[in-house]
C-alpha cells in the first residue's frame, strides 16, 4: 500500500516512518508538513492511504480532505483534540492518539486495509465542531487554495451540485451542499432565508416588502434575495422583531 505521512512535526513523521518500515506491505511515497503541501502531493501521487494529523498550519486535516476530489483512505492522528475525537467516535472511524505503540499502529493499518467502500468522511467533517476552527471556508480552484474568513462571507447561493460563495470582492464556486453549510456555519451569524440561499445576518441592509405579502432582503453589497414564506418567521425572530 502506498502511503503519505502528513504531520507538521519531523519527529512525529519519523516514528510513523519507523512503524511503517516494520510492516512489509507499506511503502511510504511521501511526507508533508502542512495542509497545502498535503493537498498537492495527494493529488499528484494518488496514495492508497494517508496518515493525517488534525492540527496543522494553514489547513487542518479536515480541510485537507474537504479539498480533495477523491480522498484516499485516512488514518487520523492527533495529540489532543477532544472535538476531533468526538467527531471520529460519532462516525466509528479509527484514529491514533499520540503517542501510540507499534501494536496500535498495526491494528489501525489492518483495519484501514479491510475498508472497501470510501469512508464516510463527509459526516466527520460535519460533526467536527471545534469552537476555534471552522471560522473560515477553504476553496480550491485548480492549484490555488483560498481561505475565506467567515466574517468576509456575505451570502451563499445554491448552484446545482455546487454552491456559490460571495464576499464583497469575490465569488467562489465550491462542490458542496446547502444543508452542509446550514449545519456547519455558526448559527449566531448566518441564517437560511430560502431553499437556495444562506445569508450573513449582519450583512442585511434592509428587508423590503414585495407583492402578496412576500419579502426580499437587501444586502450590504446591494444584492436582493427573496425570502421564502417558511423562512420568514425564523428570520424575524433572529432579527429580534
Amino acid at each position, binding site marked *: 500500500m502506498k502511503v503519505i505521512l502528513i504531520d*507538521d*512535526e*519531523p*519527529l512525529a513523521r519519523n516514528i510513523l516512518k519507523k512503524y511503517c518500515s516494520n510492516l512489509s506491505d507499506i511503502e511510504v511515497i511521501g511526507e508533508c508538513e502542512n495542509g497545502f503541501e498535503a493537498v498537492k502531493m495527494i493529488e499528484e501521487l494518488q496514495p492508497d492511504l494517508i496518515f493525517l494529523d488534525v492540527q496543522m498550519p494553514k489547513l487542518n486535516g479536515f480541510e485537507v480532505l474537504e479539498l480533495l476530489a477523491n480522498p484516499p483512505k485516512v488514518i487520523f492522528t492527533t*495529540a*489532543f483534540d477532544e472535538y476531533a475525537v468526538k467527531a471520529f467516535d460519532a462516525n466509528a472511524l479509527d484514529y491514533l492518539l*499520540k*503517542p501510540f505503540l507499534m501494536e496500535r499502529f498495526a491494528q489501525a493499518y489492518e483495519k484501514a486495509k479491510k475498508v472497501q467502500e470510501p469512508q464516510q468522511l463527509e459526516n466527520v467533517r460535519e460533526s467536527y465542531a471545534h469552537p476555534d476552527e471552522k471560522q473560515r471556508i477553504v476553496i480550491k480552484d485548480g492549484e490555488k487554495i483560498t481561505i475565506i*474568513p467567515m466574517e468576509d462571507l456575505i451570502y451563499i447561493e445554491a448552484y446545482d451540485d455546487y454552491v456559490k460563495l460571495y464576499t464583497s470582492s469575490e465569488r467562489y464556486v465550491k462542490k458542496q451542499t446547502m444543508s452542509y453549510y446550514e449545519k456547519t456555519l455558526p448559527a449566531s451569524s448566518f441564517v437560511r432565508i430560502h431553499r437556495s440561499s444562506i445569508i450573513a445576518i449582519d450583512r442585511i441592509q434592509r428587508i423590503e416588502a414585495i407583492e402578496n405579502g412576500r419579502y426580499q432582503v437587501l444586502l450590504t453589497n446591494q444584492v436582493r434575495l427573496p425570502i421564502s414564506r417558511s423562512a420568514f418567521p425564523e428570520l424575524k425572530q433572529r432579527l429580534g422583531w
Partner: protein
Amino acid sequence: MDQIGVSESKNLRTQVILALGFGGLYSFALFCSGFTYQNFLYSGFVLALEIFIGGRMMTTVFRYFQPKKTISLVPLTILFLQTAIVTSIFYWIVNALPEAWKPMIFLPHFSTHAVVLFFVFWVFFYEWWFIKNDVRNLNDTQRLLHLQEDLKNAEIKNIQQNIQPHFLFNSLNSISSLTISAPEEAQKMVVMLSEFLRHSVVKNQKMFVSLKEELDQIDRYLAIEQIRFSHRLSFEMIHDDANDPVEIPCMILQPLIENAIKFGLYGQTGKAEIKMVCERKRDYIHFHISNPVDESYTINKGTGFGLNSIRKKLYLLFAENNLLKTYIENQRFHTELKIPIQNESNSN
C-alpha cells in the same frame, strides 16, 4: 469619579438626618424641661440648621484636605475652628434679632453650646471619614473577590492552560520517537519536560513570581518546542539580569509566549522567529514580544479570548487599563506588556 459622587450624596443625606435628629433631640429636651411650644420648636430648628451648615462646611473643607487619621492635630484644629465660627455666627444672629423674637429661642451658655456643637461635628467627621474609607475598601474587596474567583477558576484551568494538553501529548510523542532514533536526546527531553511540569505545578499555588523564575520557565518551554520544531523555530531574548528579582504575576507572560508560538509556529509554515525584549522603564517592566503571523489566514477571533482574560487579570491586579497592547506590523504580531513594579523580592 462615580464613587466620589456616591459617597457625596450619601454624606449629604446622613448629614440632613443627623441635623434633624439632633435638632429634634434638643427640642425634646427643652420640651421635657417645661419650655413653651414655640420655644422648643424654634430652638430645635435653629440648632438643626446650625448643624447642617456646619456639616456642609466641613465636607467642603475635607474635600480639599483629606486627613489620613481621625485623631490628629490637623482635623481636630479644623473642627475646633469650625465650631467657634458657627457658634459665634449663631450667637451674633440671635443677638441681632428683634427683641420680640428673642424669648422664642432658648440660648444656653456660649461654652455649653460650643462643646455640644464640637461633639456633633466630630460625629460628622467620623461618619464622613468612614463612608469615604468604606467606599475605597469596598472597591478593593470587590476587586479582590473577583481576583480570587478568577484565580480559583484559573487554578482548575491552570494545568490545562499552563501545560496545554496539546503541547504535553505532542512532546510525549516526540519523546517516543526519539527513544528509537536518539535515546540520549529522548532522555534529555524527558528531564526537560519534567522540570517544566514541576515548575508549572508549583507555580499554580502562587500569585506572583520573580521575573527570573518566569523567564526560566519560558526557557524550558521553548527548549522543548525547539526539539519538536528545530528546523523552523528560533528564539531571541534580550533581557537585563538586574531585573531578575522583580516580581510579576503568574500566568501573564507565559500565555503570551504560548500565543506567539501558536500563531508564529503552529499557525504558519515559514521560519518562526520569535523575539522578546524585556526592560525596565521607571516603575514598569516592559515586555515586547513579536512573532511572524500569516495575515491572510489569521483570524484574531480565536486569540481575542485569551488576550481578554489576560487583560482582565491585569486590571484586577493593578487597576490599570492600558497594560497590554497588541498590533500587527510588517507581517509580525506584536505584543506589548507593561507590569507595574510592586515590590522587589529581597531574596535572589
